[in-house]
Structures are given as C-alpha cells and as structure tokens.
C-alpha cells in the first residue's frame, strides 16, 4: 500500500482499529468500568465513521451561500445530525451504565465480573 | 351420500364439555356434580342415537364450523364408521358413569371433581374424533384426548402414578408429533384434508412417499392403539382408577387409535394406495406379532389389570390386522370387533374394579375362591372371558369369524393361524382366573358379598351386551350393518 492509498483510507483504518479495541474492552475485560470504556470507544469509532462519510473535499459548511450553487460544494450535514443523536444516545447509555455500576458496587463490593457471577450464583 | 346440515353432532361433542364446566362449578356438591355427569352421558347418547337413523338412511349429517387454517374448517360429519364408534363410546359412558360413582365413592378417592371433569372432556374428544370430517379436526380432538386422559392416569398422585404419567406422555405426545407431521405432509401433497371413502391422496404419489406417510400415520395412531413396540404405556397406565382403565384404556382412547387407523387407511389412503405403499405386509406382520406377544405377556402378569391390559393390546391388533388387510370381511370383522371387544373388555375391567373395591386385591394369585363371595361378578367375568376367547355364540366369535374370512380372502393363511393360536392363548390367560375363583378353596371368601349395585348392575348390562352382540349382531343399534356399510363404502364392493 502506498502512502496516498494509506492516507485515503486513514480514517477507515483508525475506525476499524478503534472498533476492535472497543470490542476487546467490552468482551475481553473483566472489570465493568473497563467494559464501559470499551463500549464508549466502540461507539466513538462509529461516530468517526459517520463523520468521515460526510466529508466533502473542499466543501464548505452547510449553510446556504449563493457563491456555492451545487450540493457537492457543501459538507453533507445529515451524518452530523445523525451522530448528534447517536451521541445523545451514547451519553444516556453511559449514564445508565454508570448508575448500574454504582448499584452493583454497593451491593457486591466489587466490579469484577467473574467474582460477581460467583456471588450472584451464591445468592440465588 | 346426501349431506344434511345438523347441529346434533356438534351438540354431541359439546354436551360433555359443558358438563365438565358444570362439574367443576358444582364440585362442592357431589350428588349434583354426578348428576351432571349422568345427564350429560344420557344426553350425549341420545344425540348420537338420534343421528343413527340418518346414517342408516344413507345421509351424512354434519356441520362445518369455521376455518382453523386457511381452507381447512373445523368440521364434523357423521358416517357409518364414526357413528358406530360414537355409539359404543357414548353408550358405555353411561354405564361407566354409574360404575364410576360406585367405585370412587366406595374407595373414597380424592380429587373426584377433577376426575369426573377430565372424564367428560375425554368423552367430548372421543366423539370429536369419531365425527371429525377432516384430518386437522381429527388431530385437534386426538391431542385433546391425550391431554385430558393424563390427569386420570396420574390420578393417585403416587410416584408410580407420576412415572406412568410421564411414560404415557412421552409415548402419546411422540405419536401426536408423528401424526401432526403426517397430516402436514398430506396437506402439502393432497388437494384436501377431508376424509373421503377411497382416499384423498393424489394418484401420482410415489411408493416411497406413501410408505413413509403410512409409517408416520401408523406411529401416530398406533401408539394409542397399543401396537407393539409402542404399547408399553398401556400396562403402565393401569395405575389409573379402574373405570378409567375400563372405558378409556379399553374403549375410548385405545379405540380412537384403531378408529384413526381405519380413517387413515380407508379415507385418506384407500385400498389402492395402501397396496401401492407396499406397507400392508409389514404392518400386518407387526399386528400379528403384537397379537401373539401380547397374549404371551398377558399370561405372565399376576396383576389382574395388567393382564387385561396386555389382552387389550392383543385384541386391538386384531382390529389393526383387519383394517390393513383391506378385504371386505376383514374390515367387517375388524370394525365389529371394535364394538364387541369394547363390551367384553369393559366387563372384565368392571369386574376387576368391583373385586378391588370390595377386597382391595389386584393380584390374580390372591383371588382363590373369590367366586363364592362375588358370584355375579365372577360369573360375568367368565362369560366375557369366553367371548374374548372367541367361543360362539358370543360377540367375540362373530368378529373373529369375519376376520378369519378376511385373512383367507387376503390369502394369508399364516395370519389365520395367528388368530387361532391367539384364541387358545386368550383362553389360557383368562380361564385360569375363573377356575381359581370358583374351584379353588379359600377361607377368606366365604360370605356372599358383592360390590355396590352401582358397580354390579353396569357390569351385568355389559355382559348382556357382549352376549347379545353375538346372537343378534344387528339388534343393538345395527352395529354390524354399520361395519358392513363402512367396509362397502371404503372398499367399494358389492353387498355379499
């Protein structure tokens, strides 16, 4: 892969890298907070992916301006809007998850998944 | 045949469902509760009987309710085959109800409300099976019957009863699954699911497909019919109260199996397709093996009810044999045997129950000399035993006579031999009981003390029926003519 090809695909490479890191955090890590960090990384990677898709080389901000007559001259605003929504969702998810970890820690005194599963089994 | 719209078939099905509800509602007042049972039994029989005239007049009363699957309606039709089964089941339900009351009360059984309610639902399902106009309606009632019988099998709640219940479910639900698959398969290849004399399968169906289908059907209905090796739930189910064994496990449930086989072979396959499937001989061989093995196993049982259960397994296979041979005489004999065996076997079970209710004995080895105490019961037992062994002039002789004719017409002399040997084996496992009862002496049974008249009267009546069927096969509700008519319509042969 030459340098030009790499720079064109740069965002995709980073996105993929982040997705994998996030996935590993969610599934591979035993600590609940680390899982949560993994989830956030994963979601951020998706935001990046959308935003990259909106890029229009040489395009301007999507506010109507008579000097730019064709749509191709503007950055695509829709992915930004979508991602704004997705960020809200992601923040809400993180909030709920943090509240859950607080509740879990209060009840079990640990955030280690293996230990938690053992103690859950003991409780039931 | 002319179709007449009639609500009586539907009412005949529904009356005992309604009774089941009333029984549950009136559970606290036993006399009222049993009143509903008796009223429903008599009404049901009346309704079924009122349809007999139509059927004998060449009409098929029926009703189509509503579709339960696109193009397939929940529908009832009353033809000769159906009404013959329905008549025997509903007539014997009246007697069994009376007997049940005596039996359950004299033993002080628990959960009587559940018992009578389940019984009523069983009878609704049985009549539904008899009158079902298509395969889907048939399987709906067939599965209902399976489930409604379960509470009766586990009635006692003992570990043994529960184990038998599990066994019962495993066998019967597996059979139900096979039947469902078979029905779905037919739906896939045939233009209709409506029963028609002579069959509904398209002529183009290949032999392998036919054979597979027949196997599925035979497993599906054969499990209720106690066809070996699918039989072992039946002896286990003898843990149920005796009236259940008498009506359900000698008449309604198991006969629903052989009845189903008749429906399937005669009204789904038809004689030609059956021949083409190449499965006649294997099934006939299976039935013959069942007849012999069951009789041998019966001999090994000391528990009276289990011995009778094995005997039932053997006799059901008489009917199976008659049906799969698809000759007119075999069908006449087989279908008539549904009725005669019902009358005789219910008598035997009634006797076993009367003995148990009075003496709490279930084992044959403990019955020495009991004829002195319960001469009427044991006398009835003797008469019914003679009938089962095929001694003329009892009912059993007549059906066996035609079956024998059927085997000859099918050019299967080996099967004739099976029938004859089985007759001897029948005698060998039933007569010793009578012998012990009357000719062995015992100090335990000295005084005359019969069970409650609620039990003795029904068993005398069924004995009379067994004798009467042999002497006047058509006197009671034209059962023989019905069998004959079915054989003719299915096999499309001229009257002999």
């Amino acid at each position, binding site marked *: 892969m030459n340098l030009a090809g790499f720079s064109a695909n740069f965002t995709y490479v980073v996105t993929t890298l982040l997705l994998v890191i996030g996935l590993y955090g969610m599934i591979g890590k035993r600590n609940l907070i680390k899982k949560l960090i993994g989830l956030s990384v994963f979601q951020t990677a998706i935001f990046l992916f959308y935003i990259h898709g909106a890029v229009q080389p040489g395009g301007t901000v999507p506010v109507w301006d008579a000097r730019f007559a064709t749509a191709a001259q503007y950055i695509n605003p829709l992915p930004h809007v979508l991602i704004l929504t997705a960020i809200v969702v992601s923040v809400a998810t993180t909030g709920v998850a943090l509240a*859950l*970890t607080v509740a879990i820690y209060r009840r079990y005194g640990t955030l280690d998944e293996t230990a938690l599963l053992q103690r859950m089994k003991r409780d039931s | 045949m002319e179709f007449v719209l009639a609500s009586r078939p539907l009412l005949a099905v529904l009356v005992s469902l309604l009774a089941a509800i009333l029984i549950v509602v009136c559970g606290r007042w036993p006399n009222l509760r049993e009143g509903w049972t008796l009223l429903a039994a008599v009404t049901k029989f009346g309704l079924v009987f009122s349809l007999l005239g139509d059927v004998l007049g060449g009409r098929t009363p029926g009703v189509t309710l509503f579709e339960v699957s696109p193009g397939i309606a929940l529908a009832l039709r009353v033809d000769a085959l159906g009404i013959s089964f329905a008549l025997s089941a509903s007539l014997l339900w009246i007697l069994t109800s009376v007997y049940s009351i005596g039996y359950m009360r004299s033993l002080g059984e628990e959960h009587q409300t559940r018992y009578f309610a389940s019984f009523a639902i069983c009878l609704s399902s049985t009549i539904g099976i008899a009158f079902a106009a298509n395969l889907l309606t048939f399987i709906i009632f067939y599965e209902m019957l399976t489930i409604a019988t379960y509470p009766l099998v586990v009635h006692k709640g003992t570990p043994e009863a529960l184990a038998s219940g599990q066994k019962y479910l495993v066998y019967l639900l597996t059979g139900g699954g096979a039947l*469902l698959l078979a029905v779905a398969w037919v739906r896939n290849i045939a233009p209709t699911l409506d029963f028609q004399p002579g069959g509904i399968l398209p002529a183009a169906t290949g032999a392998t497909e036919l054979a597979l289908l027949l196997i599925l059907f035979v497993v599906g209905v054969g499990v209720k019919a106690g066809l070996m090796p699918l039989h072992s739930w039946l002896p286990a189910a003898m843990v149920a109260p005796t009236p259940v064994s008498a009506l359900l496990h000698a008449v309604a449930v198991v006969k629903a199996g052989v009845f189903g086989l008749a429906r399937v072979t005669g009204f789904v396959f038809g004689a030609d397709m059956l021949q083409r499937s190449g499965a006649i001989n294997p099934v006939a061989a299976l039935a013959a093996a069942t007849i012999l093995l069951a009789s041998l196993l019966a001999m090994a049982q000391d528990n009276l009810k289990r011995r009778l259960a094995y005997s039932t397994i053997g006799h059901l296979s008489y009917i199976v044999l008659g049906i799969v041979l698809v000759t007119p005489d075999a069908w006449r004999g087989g279908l008539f045997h549904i009725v005669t065996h019902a009358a005789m076997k219910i008598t035997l079970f009634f006797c076993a129950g009367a003995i148990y209710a009075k003496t709490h004995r279930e084992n044959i080895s403990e019955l020495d000399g009991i004829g002195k105490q319960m001469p009427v019961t044991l006398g009835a037992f003797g008469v019914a035993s003679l009938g089962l062994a095929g001694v003329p002039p009892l009912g059993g002789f007549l059906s066996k006579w035609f079956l024998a004719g059927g085997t000859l017409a099918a050019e299967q002399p080996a099967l004739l031999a099976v029938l004859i040997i089985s007759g001897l084996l029948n005698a060998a496992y039933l007569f010793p009981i009578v012998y012990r009862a009357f000719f062995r002496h015992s100090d335990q049974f000295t005084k005359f003390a019969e069970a409650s008249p609620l039990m003795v009267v029904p068993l005398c009546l069924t004995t009379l029926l067994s004798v009467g069927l042999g002497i006047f096969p058509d006197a009671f509700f034209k059962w023989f003519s019905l069998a004959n008519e079915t054989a003719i319509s299915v096999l499309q042969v001229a009257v002999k």
Partner: protein
Amino acid sequence: MTHIPVLIPAPLLLAAFLVPLAGMLHQGLVPAVALAGSAAAAAFAVLGLRKVIAEGPLHYELGNWPPPVGIEYILDPLSAFMAVVVTVTGFLSLVYFRPSARHEIPDRFVTGHAVALLLLAGLSGMVVTGDLFNLFVFLEIASLSAYALVAIGDKQAPVAAFRYLILGSLGGSFYVLGVGFLYFATGSLNMADVAERLAPIYHSRAVIAAAVLIAVAMALKMALFPLHLWLPDAYTYAPSAVAGLIAPIMTKVAAYVLIRVFLGVFQPSFAIDHIPLLPAISWLAAGGIIFGSVMAIAQQDLRRMLAYSSVSQIAYVGLGLGMANPLGLVGALLHVANHAFMKACLFFVAGSLRYRTGSVGISDLAGMGRKMPWTFAAFTVAALSMIGIPPAAGFFSKWYLLLGALEVGNGWFVAAILLSSLLNAAYFFRVLENLYAKAGGKEDESRVAEAPASMLMPTLLLAVGILVLGLLNSLIVTEMLMPVASGMYRR
C-alpha cells in the same frame, strides 16, 4: 394524510412524561395516566389495522417533510399487525404492572410506570417507523428503558442489567454501523427509498457488510442462540412486573426488524444468494429451539425456566423467517402474537405466585394448583399452548412452521419443531405435575390465597386470548399474515 401511524407511539410518549407529574400530585393517578396512554395507543393500533386491511397502507410524514428527506411513519399490514400485538400485550402488562410493582418495587412505582411507558413507546415506534435511523433511536429508547427496568429487580438485577446493557448496546452499535454503510452506499435512510436504490448494488461489499452487521445486531437484540447470553439473567432477576412486560414483546420487535430489513428493504433473495444470512438464521434458530428447551428442563427456578423457554420460542420466529417461504413467515408472525400472549400469561403467573408466596422454585409448587386455582388454570392453558396442544394458539404456529419446513423440504427443521414440542412438554409437565398431582409438603396446611383480582384478570384474559387466537387463527392468517407473507416474497 392520516395521523394514525404517529398516534400509536405518541400517547405512550406523552403518558411517559405525564406520569411523573401525576406522581407528584398523587400516586393513585399514575396507573390511570399510564393505562389511558396505553389504551389510546392500543385503540389507534387496532383502528389502524382495520383501516390498513380495508384501504391499504397508511403513510404519515413527520413534520410534513415528504420522504425520502423527511421521516416517514408507515402502517402497512405487517407493521399494523405488530403494532397491535405490541400495544395490546403492552396494555395488559401495564394493567398487571400496578399491583405487582406496588408489592415488589413500591419505591419505584412512579418511575417504573414512566419507564415502562417509554419502553412501549420505543417498541411501537420501532414498529411504525419507515426510517432506518429513526428506528435506531426508538430501539435505544426501548433498550435503555429495559436496562433500567431490569435493574430495579432483585439483588442480582443490576449485574444482569449491566450485562444486558453491554450486549444490547453492542447490538445497537452494530445496527447503527450497518445503517451507516447503507446510507453511504445509497444516500438515503428511508426504507422504501433505500430498497429501490439497493437493488442494483447488491454485490457491493459495503452493502453486504451492512447486511451482516444489521443481522448480528438484531440477533443480539432478539436473543437468537448463541447470542442469547443476556436474556436468562435479565428475565430471572427483573421485577415480576417488568418480566411480564419485557418478555412477551421485546425480543419480538427485534425479530420484526429482521423481517422488515431482510424481506422488505432487501429483496428476500439477497440474504440467500449474495450472503446466506437467512439460512444461517434458520440453522441457528433450529439449534436455539433445541438448546433453549433443553436448558429450560434443567432449571429449578420457574422464571429462569420461562426465560430459557423464551430463548427457544424466539428461535421459532427466527426459523420461520429463515426458511424464506411464505408459510414459514406466516408461522413466525403468528407465533409472535401467540407467544406474546403465552409468555405474558406465564410470567404473570410467576409474578402472582411470588406475590402470594415469595418463592418461585419449581419444587415449591406442590399443591399450589388447588390453592390458586384460577391463576394456575391460566398457567395450564398457556403451558399446553406452549407444548402445542390444539386448539390452543401454540399448536397453530407449530402447524404453519411445519408446513413451511415441509415445503422447503428440510427434515432437520421438521425434527427440531417436533422435538421441541416434546421438550416443552418435559419441562411444563414437570411443573404441572407439581401443581396438581403432588400433594403439598409440610406447608400444605398453610393458606395461600388466590392472586388479587387486579393481577388475576389480565392473566385470565390472556389465557382466554390464547384459546381465541387459536380458534380464530385462520382469520388472522388469511386477512393479515398471508397477504403480508406472499407480498414480501412476490417481489
């Protein structure tokens, strides 16, 4: 333009915001507001369904922006059917929610109602929306509500909820990633528009990646074996009121999304020829049917048994979809309705049992059949239906699925369907045996009363509903499902 499509989620959303206000005034007002909102949604759904059958699909343009630019809400036979299932079952669940929540989670009574309404709003929104990204938003509304609701249950509930959250969010993220691929490939988010633009570019790798991502996402959300890991704990430790709300409908809506995407947005042939997603789903489902049933047999806790049974039952829907023929789809959709009623009924009974005895162990059930006769009569009906005994509804889903499996000529599917009904019998009859045949143990003298009327009524209603659904299935199939199924496969 008719407003009906938007009027299905709207009252639920409105009620969700009104409930906390009502709770500030007086707690007694809360259930009234919740039920009013839910009843309105159900009424509009039923009205919509009738209108759809009579006049054809209803379209609603959100904010008067015409599609494909604006978001479009569509009520076609499929979404109308789903909307009725979701809102009617949801309404009954809310009726049951009040007494159960008051008993089990009294300090979360108001918030519980509000979040439950949000959940229903999310689910009904997913059903009516015609926009892929809007679907994600509703999906997350429903999912977040579900995590929160599960978490207010037993001691173990937050852990179960957290695991549910991680896997659920993973599913949601996969979905939104998949939608991103679709958007950049087609430039549209409107389902109908995307469908048109997709057809020429089926071979594109981006499109195939999108399909895989969406399939995995929804398989996670619907707990399709082997992605079901979040489900058993979540259903077991959730408050009874919540289990009765989530278990019947939540996973079904994810299954609906699969149907919508792979039979609607994509042509059915895509997920067979270009990438064998439907076959994969069907095989996993066949495995899940058996796995779930076997696991259910091994459970000692009634709720966990029901949870594993859900794993098995949702796989029925997956199987019907994966068979890729109209009869299979009819079976799948009918089973969505049937199972919603059955599972709601069963979880209601488990909740009522807990309400009266505090215990949900299967071995503690001895003799309960006579102590709570009506409750367990309903249980028996639902259990027989799960086994597939006619004329209960469950028999008929089995019937259509079997017809579908025979039509595609797959013996394994046939075997899975038939075997599963035996396995269902194994675990349900174990319960029934305890309920009726075994005498109660040392506690036999204890007097356990029948569940209160407010819990009993919805339970019995569902039991009757199961029988009615069974007897009238032909009406549903010919009027709604057959046209849906043949429509989707005709293209």
